[in-house]
């Protein structure tokens, strides 16, 4: 008897609570468009679509306190890892476009998420309002010092002569695979690829001599290069990188530079976007912020909203083409 009454009581409490939220939650979520930005007492959340501790996360955490000072409101970092950034980016796309939720949409890696139909992403280029690029990260080709490969040409001719294997992360049509496909298209070669699930496993495969080369960001290969376990043979960028002046820029026209980019959901008011963009520029000009970001292995580079937008369009076209080529085969 007593338990039945308890059950009823519990059900009533729940029903009341649900009813109460239904009444009150709606006005708060829509009443944000009129007031000026940033409104005191509100918090900004930066969605980081990868695990805590990675490059993007480190950059976000270096940026957040300074951005808070600049905007005069609290700035929180929210890690939403999973599905190669897709979980966090989906949440960003679905957030209210009021300037209080922004997030990292790293280019071009986030493009392959929606350009590949197999992944069933619910967002596209149009789902976001680019705000600014904060850092640039270049990609290099790395081999073992005793591999007999010392230039990109060596690698290409080795690939033309026989099987040449690369370790990749991200699987087929992931970041590494798409970069390799650009090299293949530019040179008419074909690489054999072995997919790994972490950067460490990829590195072990190369150091252990199981594969011939890898492509990766400078930050990921630098420790091994400095220890003399690896060497970089080619920079896959448009121009030289001051951090590694000795590594030649590739002469086959492949540009695999990545930008750490902040965006908001689509339809963000232009004045809000401009206000955040301006604060980011101010913050990135501070020497200690710049130093903190540079130490993560990428180069602090402010890229305006409009430049980010065109970089996005360019990557969008390039990656969609690579993916449709792969599908046609």
């Amino acid at each position, binding site marked *: 008897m007593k338990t039945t009454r308890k059950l009823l009581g519990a059900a009533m409490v729940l029903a009341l609570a649900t009813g109460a939220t239904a009444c009150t939650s709606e006005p708060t979520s829509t009443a944000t468009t009129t007031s000026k930005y940033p409104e005191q007492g509100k918090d900004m959340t930066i969605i980081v679509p990868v695990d805590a501790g990675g490059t993007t996360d480190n950059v976000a*955490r270096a940026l957040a306190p300074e951005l808070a000072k600049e905007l005069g409101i609290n700035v929180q970092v929210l890690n939403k890892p999973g599905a190669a950034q897709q979980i966090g980016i989906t949440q960003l796309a679905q957030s209210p476009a009021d300037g209080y939720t922004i997030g990292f949409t790293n280019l071009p890696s986030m493009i392959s998420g929606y350009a590949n139909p197999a*992944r069933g992403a619910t967002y596209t280029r149009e789902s976001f309002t680019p705000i600014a690029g904060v850092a640039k990260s270049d990609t290099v080709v790395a081999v073992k010092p005793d591999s007999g490969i010392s230039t990109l040409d060596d690698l290409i001719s080795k690939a033309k002569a026989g099987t040449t294997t690369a370790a990749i992360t991200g699987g087929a049509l992931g970041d590494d695979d798409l970069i390799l496909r650009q090299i293949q298209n530019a040179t008419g070669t074909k690489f054999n690829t072995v997919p790994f699930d972490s950067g460490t496993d990829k590195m072990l495969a190369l150091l252990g001599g199981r594969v011939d080369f890898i492509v990766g960001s400078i930050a990921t290969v630098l420790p091994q290069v400095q220890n*003399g376990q690896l060497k970089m043979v080619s920079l896959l960028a448009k121009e030289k990188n001051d951090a590694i002046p000795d590594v030649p820029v590739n002469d086959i026209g492949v540009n695999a530079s990545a930008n750490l980019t902040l965006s908001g959901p689509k339809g963000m008011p232009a004045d809000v976007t401009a206000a955040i963009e301006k604060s980011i520029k101010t913050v990135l000009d501070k020497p200690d912020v710049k130093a903190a970001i540079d130490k993560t292995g990428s180069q602090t580079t402010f890229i305006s909203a409009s430049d980010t937008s065109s970089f996005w369009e360019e990557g969008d076209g390039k990656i969609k083409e690579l993916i449709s080529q792969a599908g046609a085969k």
Partner: protein
Amino acid sequence: MNPIDGLLTGFATVLTPGNLLLAFLGCILGMLVGILPGFGPAAASAILLPVTFALGPTGAIIVLAAILYGASYGGTVTAVLLNVPGEASSVATTLDGYQMALKGRAGPALSIAAMGSFVGCIVGLIGFVIATPLSKFALLFGPPELFAVTIFGLSIVTGLAGKSLRKALISAAIGLMVALPGLDPVSGAPRFTFQSPELFDGLSFVAVVMGLFGISELLSTIDHNIKSGRALPVGKILPTASDLKRSAGPIGRGTLIGFAMGLLPGSPGAAASFLSYVTEKRLSKRPDEFGKGAVEGVAGPETTNNSMAISGMIPLFALGLPTSATTAIMLGAFTINGLVPGPLLFDEHPEVAWAIIASMFVGNVILLFLNIPLVRVWVLFLRLPYPVLYGVVLGFMLLGAYSLENSIFNVGVMLAFGVLGYLLRKIDVPLAPMALTIVLGQLMERSFRQSLAMSEGSPTVFFSTPLATVLLIIALLALLYSGIRPALARRTRFARILAPKSEVPVPANISTPTSTDRNQK
């Protein structure tokens, strides 16, 4: 600098008030995050990373390392008291640790775990100091070698069986199934993801085992009439002489198993501690006590965890390669401070490298002296009326599962596996084999297909190096043996039953818990 000189200068750096305080704080924090189910050392150290900017490289790594090994002490507490594995590596501890707690032997279980952890860490550290050249070991393990290791891992399944071998195999098969959802490791196409991107990376192992062991235990306790409390006898805190004697062997072997497994790239913590558990069970003269509160079943896996936490740092220090989430964050702390982990570190910044190693010796001594008295505090939880414990632990687990990836999805995963675990327990399907094969399943398929991708399809790749060949042969023999063994055991058991006075002997000091015990309150 030779190791002895290095260590001496290291100790000189560490035994300053500032660095001691950092080690102490790191240990406390590590223990606390170890106790919180779900919220692990990786998340804690990631959040602390910006704070450590200010500490400089030595201070930063001292704190982060302390969090890592401190957490492996703390993870034991909920595993023993509540059957909730707070981290992947404490799943095996729940099997006998919780049974000991039910018998009022939570104190000895936790004390033994602390001692085992201490020995595991200290011996691991000595190995660290003398065996840094061994780090090249990790490079010997490519996909074909790892595939052989996972096959060997499968041979552990039968050791985790209860009364019925068939049900253990069913559990193992369900585990392989649980590891299926996700993106195909080679083609990248989604499999068994039901159109939800949350499943692209597969199910979170920690959420799954929190549900499978923790939630299912809560449900099985509350489903009969417990109103006022379970009034478990708290009993003595310190282990008896016989506990210590019985634990010595498992601690020694656990250290070796953990140390070796920590050197392997991508070696999953849960598999190593299960390996230790089954090794002890098979070596024991009293295998029947396992699963009913055998102290060896706590001592072995707990030592393994901690020894592995230490040797897992060797690839980072020696090769600059992080093999776990936490060591990845330590790598971040190095680079942010302008240091490069790897052989160069010992050449260019020996004072930093040796100070960190010395700090781990000191930290473990701190943890031992902290943990033994704290056991008294932890067992007080058992005095709480069970209904209160039930509500609060459920609340903690909801929060912990949420904090794994800041997502409600993992809360759902934990609950679903709680219900699955509850139902499977009702038909006596053991849950441990499932936990093991969830870990092995993914690794097995990946390494298998990576191997074939390396050789462009030729199966000779599995015998392409001497190590791969030897490992595969050992693995196949182990698998064969584990298949034959239960049949042999069954025969001897039938023989015993047929013989006059065929009761299975139960030692006087261990009483088998039946549901009558549990229903009495």
